[in-house]
């Protein structure tokens, strides 16, 4: 029985803090410490959440944001993978782009939003570009590093087995770099999610970011809290999925 409770305690450890925050929120609401405009009560937030779910408002916003992230992330991964491979195997060529890379890496994608709206309007293109810019570099750098750090001794094994260039890449370089690639994708997905919400707050008429900004303009802080909660929750789920995938791919599911 004691062991059972210890196991349960270990599983629940990361969730205690949420219970404490919720309890503090309930107490603060009961004592009416702050105006409900500044901090809506938990039950009001819950009621709003239920009504928004019934109207399909939340599902529509989440789906719209997810669709944008999926499209932007796919484009970004294709670009990052191609550039990562080129830079890893053609270092002489990548030298020409070193400073441009460093420059772009240090420019926050959201700082480009005004220019992008000017050039592309508030349509999908500007948001896709923001996602691509946000997620490209973590993926590119990880793919580049993973391929460059491939154990030369294993490559030599491939050569001794008569593998040609493409076969060496598929059978040795790629599997060797898979952990770095997945870690890059995990980071890139997190970045693209954050950047998208930012972009939707400036230049969109739908999506979770837009939902938060619109709620703020309507003085609906309960909806703002729901939006923040959904963003965090979806981010955590996608991150968890990626960590499971990384473990599955890299260790055959075995915990190391």
């Amino acid at each position: 029985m004691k062991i059972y409770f210890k196991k349960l305690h270990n599983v629940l450890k990361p969730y205690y803090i949420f219970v404490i925050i919720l309890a503090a929120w309930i107490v603060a609401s009961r004592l009416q410490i702050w105006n409900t405009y500044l901090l809506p009560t938990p039950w009001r937030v819950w009621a709003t959440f239920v009504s928004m779910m019934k109207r399909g408002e939340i599902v529509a916003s989440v789906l719209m944001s997810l669709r944008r992230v999926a499209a932007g992330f796919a484009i970004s991964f294709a670009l990052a993978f191609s550039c990562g491979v080129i830079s890893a195997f053609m270092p002489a060529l990548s030298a020409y782009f070193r400073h441009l890379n460093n420059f772009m890496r240090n420019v926050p994608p959201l700082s480009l939003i005004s220019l992008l709206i000017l050039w592309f309007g508030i349509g999908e293109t500007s948001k896709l570009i923001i996602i691509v810019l946000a997620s490209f570099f973590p993926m590119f750098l990880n793919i580049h590093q993973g391929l460059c750090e491939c154990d030369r001794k294993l490559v030599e094994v491939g050569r001794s087995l008569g593998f040609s260039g493409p076969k060496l890449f598929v059978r040795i370089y790629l599997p060797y770099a898979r952990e770095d690639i997945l870690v890059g994708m995990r980071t890139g997905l997190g970045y693209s999610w954050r950047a998208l919400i930012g972009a939707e707050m400036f230049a969109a008429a739908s999506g979770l970011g837009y939902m938060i900004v619109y709620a703020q303009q309507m003085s609906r802080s309960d909806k703002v809290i729901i939006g923040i909660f959904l963003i965090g929750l979806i981010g955590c789920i996608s991150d968890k999925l990626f960590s499971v995938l990384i473990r599955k791919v890299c260790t055959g599911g075995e915990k190391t």
Partner: protein
Amino acid sequence: MSKCKDTIELCSVSKSFQVDGEALWVFRELSLSVPQHEITVVLGKSGCGKTTLLRLIGRLDTDYSGEIHYPVNARTAFVFQEARLMPWLNVWDNITFGLKRREINPGQVEELLSLTGLSGFSRLYPRQLSGGMQQRVSLARALALKPQFLLMDEPFAALDYFTRSNMQEALLNIHRSTNCGVLFVTHSIDEAICLGDRIVIIDHQQVKKVYHLRERAGAEAPLSDSELKEDILQTINS
């Protein structure tokens, strides 16, 4: 490039490395025959070019002058000093790593597992194996190619005495059952005497002496192992 039916022939092979702009010669006009069906052991002091010789024959280094002739359709397989297994693959997949999908024969893989004493370990990953087991997987991977020549670069150097002894025994069994030629590089004279049908001493960029151990058995007054060891030591140090 084929010339002899079942022998790898090195004809006047020269090889150098550039060190500080100057050529450092490893071999000059080196000639050597490596017959199939025999275990040829290459012995020499550290840095004399034993590994380089193996790399040239294994086509891992193609920057040399002279000629290397291989028998028609000769397949060579390399066993390195370290096991060099693919960490993301289990034992089974590591053994079949060099084969095309259609070439994989489960019966043959089982046979190799049994030959190398790895039956029952096929689903384990390299990190779950001991050093000796990893080296046996590496040997099985090379044998899966059904090579005519097995090129082995000090494969047992990092193993403890007992594992090394078992591996030597296993190699002799494999050689007897597959009859493939073995070119074995080592710096251990005892290992060379234990395994070799021929011992090739390399020194000063040349083949210094070749001992024919099979013929020794049929000689009128054959050298004992200790006398042979003494002689090899003198040859290397002279």
